[in-house]
């Protein structure tokens, strides 16, 4: 057995009781509220049920730690709307904003529920027939962008406020220092999309921009697809190392959420989980140390939409300068994005077989 003197030597510094602090997690839930899709689903699952189940999921996230936060966004057919937290409004009285406390629920849960259902009712009543007729899909790219901006804002506010001298800042523990080098400082964020609509090729570029922004900040986009074929979200999950689940039984939504989309924050470290006498603080490979095996992605549809007519295409033309995709040769061989003059060569000629 080593003597205590052996424990301290020049090469191994004592690391024992350094301050441990948890990084808050922010869960952004995007609920696709496309009226057409929900009316098609109405026999199996109503929007109200789905939202109630999504709230159980967000409550479980909030229950994990006091510092955890959620945001909930509706992706409607013509716009994306905040359900929680709601932007401050000019003409509401403070009374209506506060839910009555019953003593049956945790105050924060009541607040979120109240806010979500009030905003949702407003959204539904404001939707006109023309809005529904105008499109068959949903504003997923707008909702993703809203979620990302909110995450970014929260992260900034956290780092600056912590930076101002609050004890137990995000960078005290040994783990956070290592993990916050890329991605967002001081915040674990993830986005969960409840999808019911097909992807709209018209939103290909905007969606992909949002997805790359998320991938850059290491924010996983998880998708629970209840209906339809959200090609771009499938790609989003693939690119951001998210989880994509296609729900075969939409009624079981709460199980899909609680079980399938159950993930630990990436900064979660084994050292805190295991006994102190075990020093193998190994981190799980590329997944940032989560001890969970994630469900395998099904075959991802990688097809892109062209930049000229927003068609989803298998084969197309690519600008050799800016890599824009076109379904047909642009007029006069000029790239629509970067205006480069392109030469087609002898397109369509038979290949020479030697």
């Amino acid at each position, binding site marked *: 057995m080593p003597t*205590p003197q052996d424990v301290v030597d020049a090469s191994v510094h004592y690391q024992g009781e350094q301050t441990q602090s948890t990084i808050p997690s922010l869960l952004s839930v995007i609920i696709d509220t496309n009226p057409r899709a929900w009316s098609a689903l109405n026999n199996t699952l109503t929007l109200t049920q789905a939202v109630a189940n999504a709230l*159980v999921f967000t409550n479980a996230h909030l229950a994990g730690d006091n510092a955890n936060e959620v945001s909930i966004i509706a992706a409607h057919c013509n716009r994306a709307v905040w359900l929680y937290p709601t932007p401050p409004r000019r003409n509401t009285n403070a009374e209506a904003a506060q839910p009555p406390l019953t003593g049956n629920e945790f105050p924060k849960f009541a607040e979120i529920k109240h806010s979500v259902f009030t905003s949702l009712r407003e959204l539904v009543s404001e939707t006109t027939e023309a809005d529904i007729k105008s499109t068959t899909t949903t504003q997923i790219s707008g909702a993703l962008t809203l979620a990302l901006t909110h995450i970014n804002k929260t992260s900034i506010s956290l780092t600056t406020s912590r*930076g*101002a001298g609050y004890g137990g800042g995000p*960078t005290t523990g040994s783990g956070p220092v290592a993990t916050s080098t890329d991605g967002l400082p001081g915040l674990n964020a993830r986005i969960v999309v409840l999808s019911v609509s097909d992807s709209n090729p018209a939103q290909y570029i905007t969606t992909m921009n949002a997805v790359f922004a998320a991938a850059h900040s290491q924010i996983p986009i998880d998708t629970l697809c209840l209906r339809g074929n959200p090609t771009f979200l499938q790609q989003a999950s693939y690119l951001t190392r998210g989880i994509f689940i296609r729900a075969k039984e939409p009624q079981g939504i709460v199980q899909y959420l609680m079980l399938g989309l159950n993930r630990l924050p990436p900064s979660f470290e084994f050292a805190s989980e295991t006994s102190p006498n075990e020093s193998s603080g190994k981190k*799980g490979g590329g997944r940032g140390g989560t001890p969970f095996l994630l469900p395998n992605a099904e075959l991802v549809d990688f097809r892109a939409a062209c930049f000229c007519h927003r068609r989803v295409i298998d084969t197309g033309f690519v600008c050799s300068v800016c890599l824009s995709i076109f379904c047909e040769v642009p007029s006069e061989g000029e790239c629509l994005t970067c205006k480069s003059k392109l030469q087609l060569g002898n397109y369509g000629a038979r290949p020479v077989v030697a």
Partner: protein
Amino acid sequence: MAYQAEPSYQLSDYLEKLSGATLRKLYLQPSTSFAIFRQILSPLAQSFVQALLCMPGPIPVSKLDVWVRPDSRRARDYALATLRSLSIVQITGHGKGNPNVVQLSTNFQKSLRRALESGGDHRTFGIPSTSPVDAEITIDSLDKYSTKKWEEILHYVVNSVGGLDDGGSTGAHRSGPAPSVKRLLLEGHLVKARPGTNRMGITKPGFTFLLQKTNAQVWTLLLLWLDMAERAERASGSSSPSVDMLSFLFMLASLQLGRPYDADALTEARRNMLPALIDFGLIYINPRMPRQYYPTRLVTTLTSSISPLRSVSSGFSAIAAGTSDDVSSLGGVSKPSSRQEGIIVETNNRIYAYTRSPLQIAVLSLFTNLESYYPGLVSARLTRESIRRAISFGITADQIISYLGSHAHQEMRNFARDRMIAAVLPPTVVDQIKLWQLENDRITATPGFLFKDFENPDEYLAIANYADEVGVSAWRDDARQMFFAKKHEPIRDFMKSRKKASE
């Protein structure tokens, strides 16, 4: 040096000692299950509970293997062992051949689901008062009130340190905590009467108490209080009230800061607890409206990882400064206090503490030599003598290091972050403090249980490996086939299930 196991006043240890039946009774209340989920369980254990929550029936334990990466088995076993010891999950086997199955215990599952679904009519999250509200009571005033109360208690403990000039330097403003709190501190052996005088002296657990985070301090006092109440009840022969008391505390922890709650809606037993909680500063009752009680930040953050008032050091004055409007955007995260607060430790063992709090200065003086005072700044020096003095009081090096680390100045954190170093404190200083302690303290004691005389090597290996995996093993000697474990409950369970499986 005499080593004895000191009673632990950490919530998780306390709960693990309760019997399964008591725990199951506790879990009947949704707010309790919710609070335990939030406070005690590690992220992995929380994930397990979350996943099992919506399972209609038991699932085979082997299914868990599918979720968890193969190299995380230890983490999984450890999480499961915690869940079992708290009677949150049940693992049952049906003899040989049939796989063991795991499920949440019924009460816990029901309660937590109700808490998360925010349904039902159980009213365990506190009944708000409908009477008119006194506009003077704001979150600010509640914070000031609880801070003052808690500071009084800590001052009482700090001032009882021997050899320090108390009274004069640390503020003559003290009226001290309520007599009941003084008695509690004495009974809990956080302070003890110094022989020959009528003054109090701090004890080793007292130092531990002092250097903890505020949250842990509150729990320590509350559990001491529960213990005391239980002893008193047992002496008078009535049944143990601790389950109800604990449930009440968990309920208080889920209340909303700044709202009045209805005292009349409480049971009589719970109403009787209010005066004691007022003495701790956990709740506030306006003398003009005795039927309303307000929870303070001390109690509403009982089940959170974020320190409510920042710990001893943090310059309590900071609290009053700006924590009122943080509820709006990011609920749990307290707003920053003044930019200047904190301790800077230099590699030459010098310490600069930017603080105005007499309490923090008093705590620092326990283990440093104070050199000079300036307005808002104290400079001090860590020396061999100062550390040895602290150790003779019963303070450990770990406590000093964690204290300095958790109260480090933001500049030190930034410095460490910019250089991508995990340690905030200079490693030389940390090592030196450890070495100074080792000069007179060459033994570490681990209370526990020795397991030996196994029937065969296989049995030894299986059990010793299991002890390793769940993290209770402190030492093992494979040649002599014995090992030493810090806890015996998980091993006992494991041996039982092993025996059952082999039948």
